[in-house]
């Protein structure tokens, strides 16, 4: 074999290896995306075209009728609005509470500080499912059953968020700045609100992403607490029509597709930030 032949064979192997690798990556991407495409396609079909057998990747022409059906089987936009208001209010309040706690843990020394740290770490270890019964008991004892408050309030003190903010305060709020602000006569609340918070913006954005995605997608707590149709969130409503006989699946798939669109839109606009935010526990 000549030298030229040898290099040709080596290059060929390399090229084949590369194409196999690329093919795998693309195939994998297809597996990840396909269910979303499929639900969008099914959203345009009705029962007869859907159940006719065979595989049909074309869009049907039943979208408008499906939309009508969707509004008939569930109070779709009420569910979307409920989900949105829970996610938005919960996120806003958790930014406030987590940043307050994180700021306090990062700047002050006080009795019980290490105990609070220990409790936070320990509470992160307890699987949430075990706290489901006590959570429900407290909610019903306080008379909060069937309220939105019950769904977001317990999650506003996410220990992960508190640690995240604490790290940000330590890393990006200079101590001198806090000292000088105190010398200028600003009280603690003012220092926190107008000096610390603006510096924490990137940390708050990360936390907002984590909280919003969690609250929007949450299912278990609403399932346990919210029981009247006008209070239900969208995940609950979608799941609720599953048991209905002769479920109009086209309509359900349309609802499912619309319900994931807000997050997908957000994701399309800021995928880098969202990926970084949602994996921030690992990269730190």
């Amino acid at each position: 074999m000549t030298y030229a032949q040898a290099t040709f064979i080596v290059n060929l192997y390399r090229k084949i290896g590369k194409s196999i690798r690329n093919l795998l990556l693309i195939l994998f991407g297809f597996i990840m995306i396909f269910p979303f495409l499929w639900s969008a396609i099914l959203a345009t079909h009705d029962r007869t075209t859907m159940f006719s057998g065979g595989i049909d990747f074309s869009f049907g022409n039943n979208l408008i009728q499906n939309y009508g059906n969707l509004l008939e089987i569930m109070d779709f936009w009420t569910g979307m609005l409920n989900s949105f208001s829970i996610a938005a209010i919960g996120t806003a309040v958790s930014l406030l509470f987590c940043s307050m706690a994180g700021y306090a843990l990062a700047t002050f020394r006080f009795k019980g500080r290490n105990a609070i740290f220990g409790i936070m770490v320990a509470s992160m270890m307890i699987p949430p499912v075990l706290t489901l019964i006590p959570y429900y008991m407290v909610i019903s004892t306080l008379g909060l059953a069937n309220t939105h408050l019950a769904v977001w309030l317990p999650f506003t003190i996410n220990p992960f968020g508190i640690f995240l903010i604490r790290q940000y305060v330590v890393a990006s709020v200079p101590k001198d700045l806090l000292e000088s602000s105190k010398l200028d006569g600003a009280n603690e609340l003012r220092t926190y609100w107008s000096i610390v918070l603006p510096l924490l913006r990137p940390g708050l954005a990360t936390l907002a992403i984590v909280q919003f995605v969690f609250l929007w997608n949450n299912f278990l707590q609403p399932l346990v607490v919210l029981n009247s149709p006008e209070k239900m969130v969208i995940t609950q409503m979608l799941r609720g029509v599953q048991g209905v006989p002769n479920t109009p699946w086209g309509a359900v798939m349309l609802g499912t597709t619309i319900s994931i669109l807000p997050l997908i839109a957000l994701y399309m606009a800021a995928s880098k930030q969202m990926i970084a935010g949602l994996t921030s526990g690992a990269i730190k």
Partner: protein
Amino acid sequence: MNSDIDSQPRAIAHQKTPRNWHQIFRKLTPYGFLSPYLIIYGVFGIFPVLFMIYLSFHLWNPVEGLGSMKFVGFENYILGLTDPTLWQTIWNTLVMAVLSGVPQHLVALPLAYFLVMMGSKARHWFTTAYFLPYITSTVAVSMIFYVMYSKDSGIINAALAFLADASWSSWIFGGLKEVLPLGWVQENGLIRYSVSFVVWWKYVGFNTVIYTAGLATINPDLYEAAKIDGASSWQRFRHISLPLLRPFIFFGVTLTIIGNMNLFDEPYVLTVGGQFAQTAGKTISNYLYQVAWEWLDMGSAAAISWILFVVIGIFTAIYFWFFGRKGLGGE
């Protein structure tokens, strides 16, 4: 994480001046900032756990109010410990954790390894696609998969039927003809695989991103040096990437375990709230939900929670004992 605790400046406190309101106020400031956490955690975290101990010795139907509680001693615990369904659901949870968790990491690792070889633009697009399932609601994706798994009209059975019929693929898939259509979510023998696939699909991209980030922290000079020494591509992966990724693997596996212990949404939707394939597809959480909210037996559910607390605690301890110290990098 704790190294900087002692280096923080103490809130300026003048010991010389006598105690006054101003000073007391100063002392209370940190507690003021922490008060939302302390109050909410006290109400939703500490109080209920204590209450749950009390509850686990009682019979209580929540619909009839707090007055209907009846003391039953250890009966709830005895019922729980001798309940074959409880042990069955613990087993189901473990099996599905392994079925979905192990492939997650076995696929994510090489995938991340391939991804970092790509140019940054291609990598960005692939990562965006892989991560997409993670941000969408479990209920929504489980609904989509429920339709795809459908026995008579689902795309999966349709695709298998097509492959079994087509001349070029019938030598592999032809054998399926007799069993098609498969009841992916109806049959006890299949439900664990169906649920595990959805879980795998949802979280494999998340792990890929974690491993990609981990690989990005590795100094490329190491690979160069190994290349010069004649190490093959596999050897570089095995002896450089894998050991340096250890903390990331530990983190990813820990999250997978925690997530799988809490698995609820996917089996709940795929088994339609426990109407189909109940025996093999029901997880711990599903069972707890059923006992507490369908059978309305809060006392038993509380006792089951404590039993699970101990079981999960034992497994966590074993895991950390074997892998924790190594995973965190300090032997």
